[in-house]
């Protein structure tokens, strides 16, 4: 809480020092093992960088005009350089940032709405057998409706703008987060609840101090799983019927047989989702610090 405690780092657990240099054959093995692992790590890291470069280079040369003997027809699969110039074109036009922002906006707002609703409904139903008995069948049947079938309805209701995208994203995120939260809250260990009950904890206290923290791992997992879906939902909504966003750029490019544009859109999507995932991982580590797995990796 206060800053006093940040001083105590508790170094004993984290890293085991390098093995002492004893003469027994066991140590030699140990040592080799260590070096072997180091070498492996370096190889992995180098290949991680080299492989994509190699793929890009190969791709660049494999793709082209089939009449010139290229392996892949660049009408269907554009070369990396073509994709790059498509991206540059969008950037100059000013639509790139605008599209990314538009998609992100729909993703974030929809995600927030869906996540909050999912968590709240999940906690309420998860901790009340009565409410769960009443509403769960209803939610389960709602869940079985193919989401995309609802898009035309959303377009009717909300038009082609942000709201329609948000509605679709929120709907998809809601169910994922709801199920995770619901299971998490029900998964709480009775013995932990019992301990607090004996201490005269109110229902609210049990909720706040046991059920919700205990479900936190599940909730975070649910949120994490639903983030890519949120992005997909936003882009899908844009492809089906919108006039903004990355999905719209992809759709527009495809409409004019601009393959490079389609690929450029996909590249942007990949980058956006990589960034989002990295942020989520950082957040998860912070929130689930108490998990043994996370404790070990903490410095």
């Amino acid at each position, binding site marked *: 809480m206060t800053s006093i*405690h940040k001083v*105590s780092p*508790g170094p004993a*657990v984290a890293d085991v020092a390098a093995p002492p240099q004893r003469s027994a054959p066991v140590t030699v093995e140990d040592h080799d093992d260590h070096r072997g692992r180091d070498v492996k790590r370096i190889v992995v890291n180098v290949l991680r960088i080299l492989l994509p470069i190699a793929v890009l280079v190969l791709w660049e040369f494999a793709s082209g005009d089939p009449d010139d003997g290229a392996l892949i027809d660049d009408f269907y699969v554009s070369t990396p350089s073509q994709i790059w110039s498509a991206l540059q074109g969008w950037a100059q036009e000013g639509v790139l940032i605008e599209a990314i922002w538009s998609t992100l906006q729909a993703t974030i707002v929809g995600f927030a709405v869906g996540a909050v609703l999912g968590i709240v409904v999940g906690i309420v139903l998860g901790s009340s057998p009565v409410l769960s008995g009443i509403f769960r069948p209803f939610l389960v049947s709602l869940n079985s409706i193919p989401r995309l079938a609802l898009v035309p309805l959303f377009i009717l209701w909300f038009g082609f703008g942000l709201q329609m995208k948000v509605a679709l994203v929120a709907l998809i995120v809601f169910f994922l987060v709801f199920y995770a939260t619901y299971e998490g809250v029900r998964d709480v260990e009775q*013995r*932990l609840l*019992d*301990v*607090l*009950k*004996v*201490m*005269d*904890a109110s229902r609210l*206290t049990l909720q706040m*101090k*046991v059920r919700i*923290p*205990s479900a*936190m791992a599940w909730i975070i997992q649910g949120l994490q799983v639903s983030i890519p879906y949120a992005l997909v939902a936003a882009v899908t909504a844009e492809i089906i019927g919108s006039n903004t966003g990355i999905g719209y750029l992809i759709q527009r490019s495809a409409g004019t047989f601009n393959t490079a544009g389609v690929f450029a859109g996909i590249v942007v999507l990949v980058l956006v989702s990589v960034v989002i995932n990295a942020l989520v991982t950082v957040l998860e580590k912070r929130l689930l*610090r*108490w*998990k*043994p797995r996370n*404790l070990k990796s903490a410095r």
Partner: protein
Amino acid sequence: MTGPSTVQASEPDVVPEFAYRRVTRRFRSEADQEFVALNDVDLEIESGSFVCFIGPSGCGKTTLLNMSAGLLPASGGSIHFRGEKLKKVNTSVGFITQHDNLLPWRTVEKNIGIALEIQKVPRKERRRRVAEVIDLVGLTGFAQRFPSQLSGGMQKRASLARGLVYEPSTLLMDEPFGALDAQLRLNMQNELLRIWERDRKTIIFVTHDLDEAILLADRIVVFGTRPGRVVHVEDVPLARPRDLAELRLDPAYGEIWERLWKLLDHSSPAEEKS
């Protein structure tokens, strides 16, 4: 026992802390059969007394504590707590369970302080009292660790501290010192006795250690298995304060020890036939 007892003497009959009347607990085992974990327990626990439960593994000691805490209903019979029939969770007891039930997402300090949080004790006082018990159980320096960063014995001590910190008037302790080393165990026994002599709490203390039981208890309740039941209640009239080293030389101690040892010895193999 406690000074001029004119007030107490005028009371007709003192209400016991716990009164068990033919308490039975059955569990449904797999093949839809009933399994009797505890059969017809008749027992009274006097207020302010230190009672030890001892008996072979699986004889229903924990089950009886769970029922005393109101966490498990009896299948038959009744439990009265301070004269009133127990129907819901017994919030007047502190329950130190056999397995530590620390909340894994809270640090040691916040785990131990949780009862005080529930009682809305101001943060400053909470910190002070938590620091005190942390010191008492020898966990100084580990306040900011998470339970998964502690050894088994340390987790045990943390849950012990959590049960002691809010000073409940009655303590149910299920093998609280089981995982401690001899030295620490001795310290904790002395601390517990000191607390008990100071506050005169009622303490029910489950142990597998006969020496520990005789050292601590006013009365020892011996349990037997198949079905789990009370086979014997032994009064321990040894003078206090007790010291284990001296006690061992006392013939009265030896007598009690012998008697209980035989009971414990017999209660397991003799019943195998059933």
